[in-house]
């Protein structure tokens, strides 16, 4: 469901009006549907320099049934078939001069990109470069991707994947994510892979089949959507929320065939009880989604200790305590995934949210610091940082603030809870093993904190 303005802007009279008045023209985003095609059209794959990933990229596309066309040239047939995706392998760049090839490839190809198209650029992490010139060229990809994200229209996105030497086997999962409708509201972002033992394949329709996934804060909003998507992807969901939210929690659990666990995650024995529950009922756990979060907004000078402490306890300390308890226990299964919900506020800051932003920034530091520990176990820990997501909470915002807030991004609309859920479900997949310690923004390339 798109918001009212997006619906209006895509209606007959709305199209004319918004064009003539120069108003934002958000596209109706292409979102993932089980059984649907990876892309809405064919793809082209190009290189800048002697890249090493072109074959991998082509294989991912062909395996998903996508037609891969030859690159078009600058003066090529602009009226040719519209493209679903444009993928550039820039792992071969050794200096800025090599980027000319990137421009030569991208310009005519992007011109033919259809609505809800995808641009994905792959290169090595700048920090691994052999020379300043190489680092400059790799870092340039970041500016190129972000700017292209802002230029694309009608629901199309541009994202980058940074692939160090030795991490090539981890490309397929993230590439498929950025091409698919799962990443509808992820735009202008970069994900850095790390070397890991990545399974070659997974069940395309049920990537989480047989997995036990805990979702905290699952009674409503984004948490309920996460539970829905995890269950759709095959996981048994243990839906957790405070006892007072138990009736809506039970409704979520019954809708998705999961189980409800009423638990205040800030209780002193919460981690022990969760571990005990997982051992007794499931023998172990594969995915933990730390989604539960609260806001207690006030300007810092007016904020009492209770507001500060409660936000820290729920949003950060509980994530630390439960993750520690799981690492210390015998219930964390091999290849486990921990996904923590951060926030745009944790990156950009937000007036009246010193407590909230502090807790959410803390989450980003936490996953980065814990990544090596998880890597040693063949597990991962990552975060997602939602931007403006349309929920019951945003529905209560004043009209002006809400409508402006929803447009301040390249996709010119607010995201939906399902967009956050899809990103979390992707990070939970077996083939996401190469993504570790990352914070992925789900913000439509928000102007805030970019």
């Amino acid at each position, binding site marked *: 469901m798109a918001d009212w303005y997006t619906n209006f802007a895509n209606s007959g009279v709305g199209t004319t009006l918004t064009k003539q008045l120069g108003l934002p023209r958000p596209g109706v985003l292409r979102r993932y549907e089980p059984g649907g095609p990876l892309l809405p059209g064919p793809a082209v794959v190009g290189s800048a320099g002697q890249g090493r990933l072109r074959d991998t990229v082509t294989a991912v596309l062909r395996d998903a049934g996508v037609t891969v066309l030859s690159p078009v040239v600058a003066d090529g047939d602009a009226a040719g078939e519209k493209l679903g995706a444009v993928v550039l392998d820039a792992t071969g760049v050794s200096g800025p001069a090599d980027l000319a090839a990137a421009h030569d490839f991208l310009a005519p190809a992007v011109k033919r990109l259809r609505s809800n198209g995808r641009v994905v650029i792959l290169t090595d992490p700048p920090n691994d470069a052999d020379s300043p010139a190489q680092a400059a060229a790799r870092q340039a990809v970041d500016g190129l991707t972000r700017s292209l994200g802002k230029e694309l229209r009608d629901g199309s996105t541009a994202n980058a994947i940074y692939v160090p030497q030795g991490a090539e086997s981890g490309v397929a999962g993230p590439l498929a994510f950025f091409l698919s409708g799962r990443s509808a509201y992820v735009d202008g972002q970069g994900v850095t892979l790390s070397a890991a033992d990545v399974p070659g394949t997974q069940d395309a329709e049920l990537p989480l089949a047989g997995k036990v996934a805990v979702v905290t804060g699952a009674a409503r909003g984004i948490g309920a959507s996460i539970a829905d998507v995890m269950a759709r992807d095959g996981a*048994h969901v243990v839906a957790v929320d405070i*006892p*007072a*939210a*138990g*009736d809506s*929690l*039970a*409704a979520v*659990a*019954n809708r998705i*065939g*999961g*189980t*409800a*666990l*009423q*638990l*205040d995650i800030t*209780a002193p*024995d919460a981690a022990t*009880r969760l571990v005990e529950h997982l051992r*007794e*009922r*499931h*023998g172990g756990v594969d995915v933990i989604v730390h989604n539960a979060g609260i806001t207690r907004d006030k300007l810092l000078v007016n904020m009492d200790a209770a507001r500060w402490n409660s936000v820290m306890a729920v949003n950060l300390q509980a994530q630390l305590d439960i993750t520690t308890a799981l690492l210390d226990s015998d219930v964390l299964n091999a290849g486990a995934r921990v996904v923590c919900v951060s926030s745009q506020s944790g990156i950009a800051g937000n007036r009246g949210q010193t407590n909230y932003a502090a807790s959410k920034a803390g989450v980003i530091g936490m996953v980065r610091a814990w990544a090596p520990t998880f890597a040693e176990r063949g597990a991962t820990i990552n975060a997602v940082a939602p931007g403006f997501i349309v929920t019951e909470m945003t529905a209560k915002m004043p009209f002006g603030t809400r409508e402006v807030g929803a447009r301040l991004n390249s996709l010119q609309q607010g995201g939906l809870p399902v967009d956050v859920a899809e990103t979390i479900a992707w990070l939970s997949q077996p083939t996401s093993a190469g993504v570790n310690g990352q914070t992925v923004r789900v913000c439509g390339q928000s102007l805030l904190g970019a």
Partner: protein
Amino acid sequence: MADTSKPASRKAAIVGGNRIPFARSNTAYAQASNQDMLTATLDGLVARFGLQGAQVGEVVAGAVLKHARDFNLTREAVLGSTLAAATPAYDIQQACGTGLEAAILVANKIALGQIESGIAGGVDTTSDAPLAVGDDLRRVLISLNNAKTMGDRLKALARIRPGQLVPDMPRNAEPRTGLAMGDHAAITAKEWEIGREEQDELAVRSHHNMAAAYERGFFDDLVTPFLGLTRDNNLRPDSSVEKLATLKPVFGKGEGATMTAANSTPLTDGASAVLLASDEWAAEHGLPVLAHLVDAQTAAVDYVHGGEGLLMAPVYAVPAMLARNGLTLQDFDFYEIHEAFASTVLSTMKAWEDPAFCKEKLGLDAPLGSIDRSKLNVNGSSLAAGHPFAATGGRIVASLAKMLHEAGPGKRGLISVCAAGGQGVVAILES
């Protein structure tokens, strides 16, 4: 000689339970029907144990106050729940013993191998209570319905008198004595010389125990909120003997009256359900076994002519059950004596301590003796939670099973529930 021993039977396991918070009459659930409450309770149980679309062997529940339209209440609740529609169900009714009796029936079928799993429950509302038309009007309406001609119909209608339009209200009174249950309990309290202060102390302890249990999260996996209520709204965590001492007696007459609104249970709405299974079924479904239902017993007393108190039947049921199991009254780690009235609990215990009563009435050589009060209703009982008649048994069974499980293997608990009509239902659970 032929082998006359019973076939080896197994003990039914208690897997867990669910209830909605109990609400004082005409408060949070004023607009909820028995079916609404029972369905929500079943759905909460399904969510807790992942039983969506599952077929359990049988669902057995009941209500004490029941509308005529609810003739198939439990089956209708099952059909409205997320359980498989192919799950059979039936209603029972044994007054306040309904919930515990339902658990016994399910447990017995499991023990016999007739079913592998089952849900026992109970529900009651005194807010959405059935009203009946008086017998006179009812007869007129039936003749009207049977009338063949317009003349017959008019003749029937002409028999209606204004006085017949007053409906029959359901009353909490015994049909054979016309006395309210509280008045009966007051007679027993006087007979056993139960003081006001000890009743108030028991009531206060019930509130404090239950409030503490909520605080430490004991009810997190036993209760699911309903219609905005997250805890029993009869619960008074700040209750004190001083406050209770200010209340005027409501049952009994004159100077000796001791029973107040605080040391008697209020009219309450609510529902509860317990999941029982064979050990094998529980293991197959990855579900815990909290305790087993070891044995149960019912008894009834002649409160009309026999000189025994209306609510004293459990006093008789317990020794029979203890003897069958080779146990003494002291062989238990927890005692759950339903607090219909504080005085009922106290009279029950006093009777078991009384050598003359135990000899003459129970036919025992020695009194059953006293109960360690620190093991009695340790997480509160009906005086704190309230008492939706048929839902109390399920509340007690699930809570006691969890207490026994937490205490470790081999622990034993006694349940004693008194019921209208001079009946009593008791049971033993063991972890």
